[in-house]
């Protein structure tokens, strides 16, 4: 594994009786990391702790090896953040706002940097418009620009593609990937739009109920989870699913879009038994294939339900 940029150990955060983070052990190396989990799983709280906005009740959290609460200022000098909410000063033009942020980061050539960023994120034409006149996509692009303005080592993006049309999402993801390739900026992207991450992520972190369910390089996770999943098309999926569920080689069965999905623990035995079960029930076996892993499948297996 490359050098860890973000590392938490047994991180705990409670809000009254609500446990938001429950012994969270998150690790993110250099590169583009995806941080996925359903609503309320603890993604935004984790980001809050990493930025020193929220104080944990237990455990440790470090970014660049620095303590997130105590050394928050030093950390923030080296990272950029795009929050989920669009809390930008509406009366300012995009350019004026970015100039101000650039000065806060101590950027030496403010005009040049702002011009380049505006061009990179595709806001050059709208730079003099007041921010309140921006569309949802433009807000996100402005958010990305202000997160990258200090040439950070790490950019944390919270739901960067939420509320953006498909074309806008593709453009934004391309920008992120471009920034990583051009400047070597690492990204920690929190989202529940899995298909977005699939296109650009090197490392994946899955969180559920304040705990890390699994994390690792995308290739490794895909291999780990896809090898044990099978998709079967039969003439009566419900009946077939009920029968398959009784097999000892099967851990879990679910039906989706008239297809039966099985997570198996013994693929060889499973492959032998499936045709027998189908013929026994007098069902037509249309197709039987091992899944090629997608992020959604990994997520479904680890968290146990589809992302919302």
């Amino acid at each position, binding site marked *: 594994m490359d050098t860890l940029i973000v590392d938490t150990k047994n991180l705990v955060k409670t809000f009254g009786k609500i446990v938001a983070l429950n012994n969270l052990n998150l690790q993110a190396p250099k590169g583009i990391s995806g941080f996925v989990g359903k609503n309320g799983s603890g993604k935004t709280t984790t980001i809050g702790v990493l930025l020193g906005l929220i104080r944990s009740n237990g455990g440790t959290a470090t970014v660049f090896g620095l303590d997130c609460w105590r050394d928050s200022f030093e950390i923030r000098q080296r990272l950029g953040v795009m929050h989920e*909410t669009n809390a930008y000063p509406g009366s300012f033009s995009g350019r004026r706002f970015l100039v101000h942020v650039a000065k806060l980061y101590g950027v030496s050539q403010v005009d040049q940097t702002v011009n380049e960023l505006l061009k990179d994120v595709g806001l050059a034409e709208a730079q003099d418009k007041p921010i309140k006149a921006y569309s949802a996509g433009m807000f996100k692009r402005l958010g990305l620009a202000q997160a990258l303005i200090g040439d950070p080592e790490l950019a944390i993006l919270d739901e960067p593609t939420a509320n953006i049309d498909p074309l806008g999402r593709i453009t934004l993801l391309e920008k992120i990937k471009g920034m990583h390739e051009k400047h070597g900026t690492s990204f920690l992207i929190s989202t529940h739009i899995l298909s977005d991450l699939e296109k650009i992520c090197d490392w994946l972190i899955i969180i559920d109920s304040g705990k890390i369910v699994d994390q690792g390089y995308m290739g490794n996770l895909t291999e780990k989870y896809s090898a044990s999943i099978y998709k079967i098309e039969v003439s009566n999926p419900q009946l077939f699913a009920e029968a398959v569920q009784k097999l000892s080689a099967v851990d879990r069965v679910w039906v989706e879009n008239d297809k039966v999905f099985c997570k198996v623990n013994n693929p060889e035995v499973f492959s032998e038994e499936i045709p027998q079960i189908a013929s026994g029930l007098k069902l037509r076996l249309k197709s039987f294939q091992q899944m090629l892993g997608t992020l959604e499948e990994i997520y479904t297996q680890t968290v146990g339900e589809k992302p919302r």
Partner: protein
Amino acid sequence: MSKAKPRTFFRLILWEIESCLNLPILSLIVASAIFAVLVQSSYAWALANSYLNLYSGASTIFLILTLVASTLFSHSFAGSLGRGELKRMLSYPVKRWQIFISKVIALTLIVFVAYASAFTLNLYLSSLSLLEPMFYVSLFSMFLHLLLVCTISVCISMVSKSELMSILVSFLLVLGLDNAFDARSYFTSSGRFRYIFGYFEQLTHPNVSIFGMVVDKPVTVEQVTVSIALPLLITAIALTASFVYFTRKMEVD
């Protein structure tokens, strides 16, 4: 690791001022200040060519100043929390104390300049000289009151984290104090203003016969000291408590 650039603090002040100047509320502040002054000068007993007009109708000024200041401070502190602006600001390389102090300085400056500018209308309306000392005494009293309202609003913003709650509680608290106590109490804005104005009137206009309209008897040094020290003391304690909470304890989620 490089330290925060010293100019960051001044940039934040300018940023806060610029943000406020772009708010629609600014025109309300200026309009309310002018309104307060005009209402004051329209009193039937307002005297021609008299510094005493600076005193009359002070309650109107203090009332509107209380409302406006509590609105602006609550908008900037509790409001920025609710809207997520504070979260964004605290994600930049700025220190918490810089944000807190810059907000307090910028907002105090804006409200005070707006009211002080409008208050100079009095000099014209009452045909007074710019060198009239009681004009500056009145401005000083307004500043003390502004500090008190600012402190209360910031404190309540920290506790409630709700803009509307903070505006209402701050305004009603100051208004309630003014009504709950006797008009000559140190706990009311008009009471403190009465002593401060009366004391300096004794010093600067000892031979004026209308002296009795402001206070019943000569104001003592102790009375004026308490009138000045009390709001300053409350400001110092409450602002320090808010500052410590904001910089060391407050979670922004």
